[in-house]
């Protein structure tokens, strides 16, 4: 397996979707390739940081713009 093939398999590997023989070939490549091992770790961290960033509170408070509230209420009364 080349790096190009291994990197194409990353998402399926993390989701546990690789067939046993594909998984074995992928893991064999990782055991021999520091570059792909590093790439896999960064790819996994990217997903974790995406989720953490979305869950983190915003620095600014969640505001309730009064004009928008009134516009919405008026639009269903109209």
């Amino acid at each position, binding site marked *: 397996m080349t790096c190009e093939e291994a990197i194409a398999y990353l998402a399926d590997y993390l989701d546990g979707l690789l067939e046993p023989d594909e998984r074995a070939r992928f893991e064999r490549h990782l055991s021999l390739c520091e570059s792909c091992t590093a*790439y896999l770790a960064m*790819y996994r961290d990217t997903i*974790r*940081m995406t989720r*953490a960033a979305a869950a983190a509170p915003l620095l600014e408070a969640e*505001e309730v713009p009064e004009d928008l509230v009134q516009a*919405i209420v008026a639009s269903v009364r109209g």
Partner: protein
Amino acid sequence: MTAVSYGTYALPTRIAVLSMMQTVHSDATLVARLRGGDGAAFEELVRTHMGRMLRVARRFLMNEEDARDAVQDAFVSAFRSIGSFEGTAMLGTWLHRIVVNASLVKLRTRRRHPEEDIEPYLPQFAGDGHQLEPSVPWTEPADTALERVELANMVRAAIDRLPDTYRVVLLLRDIEELLPAEVAGMLGITTNAVKIRLHRARQALRTLLDPQMRGEVK
């Protein structure tokens, strides 16, 4: 009324269960008032959920005016379809899905700009299939980075830089955590296209985060 015992559960679990039951109860009361044509109930619904709805719409649309339009469309849609709210989901979850859909509709209708090419952000390979530039681990582990307050803003800004085609799939899969088939249905593309776009989006995001994770950008 059925008696329910929570005595066997730990206190935090009991508090969480009671809190959820209170939400379900207040949702049911609010929905009943809405169905009964109580005008004040709709305003209460808007005020209660506005902050979270705006946050979701801003994430998708990255434009305040479009986000406000999407939130307004979502609340009007919710008002008109309150009869179809089954009560199996929480009201907040139902509204969340509606505002995601309203944001996607808004994204489709607004003027399209030529998208930035994502290829430069993807890894490059030599003719023999090996990485042209070997990958080197990040110097700052994600666990430590996640403790930094500014990291969330940094990651959000990097996501906003992705071309829309890829950014939307990343939001729907990695943040909204929808299934590939659900995303495919919402966007009118195949599940295979969802997989390809998600993989490219994550790779491009990794590239965009790379300088910060190596301490090259403060």
